């Protein structure tokens, strides 16, 4: 097989053909995968909500509403069963983490009791602050079933009821800060 010569026409033509076929193929694949990608994203969100809220049968992601607090945005995902509110998952944040922002999802029952909490994003130190994640330790379980009206969302060192993670008071404080922010917003009009 002889190599094609590098004339201007052949070069332009080749590059054009290659790019054309490539984009056509990608365009097709994009159309095919568009649905599954959207689904998996939704599933991820639903999954995060499912972890912190008892059983529900609606699609909280579709009924999401937002509230701007302390220079950030909180997202509220109302979970309903048979049309009745069973809980709200609040995606909340704190800027006081040991190394930057922390995003967590807190599930509140309608009366403000914390049902469960999961960590969405964090950059805390492995082995210390990252113990706030469920797959690292059971630390965050202590919030479950507590109502902030009689459970002070502060570490014991600051006069609250939360036992800090060993050697990670700052991360623990930040975590409480995020939960507290979600709770206050939820009680002050975040409940729908």
């Amino acid at each position: 097989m002889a190599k094609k010569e590098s004339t201007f026409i052949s070069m332009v033509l080749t590059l054009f053909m290659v790019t054309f076929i490539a984009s056509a193929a990608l365009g097709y694949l994009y159309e095919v995968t568009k649905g599954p990608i959207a689904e998996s994203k939704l599933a991820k969100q639903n999954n995060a909500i499912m972890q912190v809220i008892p059983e529900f049968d609606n699609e909280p992601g579709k009924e999401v509403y937002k509230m701007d607090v302390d220079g950030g945005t909180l997202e509220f995902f109302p979970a309903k069963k048979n049309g009745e509110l069973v809980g709200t998952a609040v995606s909340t944040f704190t800027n006081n983490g040991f190394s930057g922002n922390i995003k967590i999802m807190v599930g509140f029952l309608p009366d403000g009791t914390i049902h469960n909490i999961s960590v969405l994003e964090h950059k805390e130190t492995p082995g210390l602050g990252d113990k706030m994640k469920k797959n690292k330790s059971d630390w965050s379980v202590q919030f479950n079933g507590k109502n902030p009206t009689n459970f002070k969302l502060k570490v014991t060192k600051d006069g609250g009821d939360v036992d800090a993670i060993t050697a990670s008071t700052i991360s623990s404080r930040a975590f409480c800060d995020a939960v507290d922010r979600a709770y206050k917003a939820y009680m002050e009009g975040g409940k729908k």
Partner: protein
Amino acid sequence: MSQWKNFSKGFFKENAVFVLFLGLCPTLGVTTSAINGLGMGLATTFVLVMSNLVISIVKSQIPDKVRIPSFIVIIASFVTMVELVMQAYVPALFDQLGLFIPLIVVNCIVLGRAEAFASKNTVISSIIDGFGMGLGFAMALTILGGVREILGSGSIFGFKFIQGDGMLVFVLAPGAFIALGYLIVLVNKINKKTA
């Protein structure tokens, strides 16, 4: 060269990571666990085999001067395919590997094999070469990921065998460099002995 030799060279004698020192960014970046290493290795293998295949087919139709840009487009297409497919069907792994998936496109192994092998050899040899190099790469990543997971998290393929944490430095950047450094020494020793 027999096809068996063609296939097996990627594992030890010409292992991309341990011997040729190619594709180091993803090697270090994603190997916090064995499964991540394996996933990345297989994704790269797919791109390697497919781009080798296509390039060896069309090689005679591509003028020399636009060879490299054409190769890059072909490779980038397959990378994007991997990206889309992973995002759709294995989103968890996709999130873990993150930026390193699009970066397969600049992985020197892929362009290197296209240029050095597929553009000169037959279709069959090119596919075999792609498989050999790719799986060798996957093996290297899985080993490094395994070592880092064992030392850093006290688990292997997600199965935990000690309580609590391991030596956390191994899941972080410094541990990646150090573990790879000593692994290279080890592989070189083995290679020398079997040579």
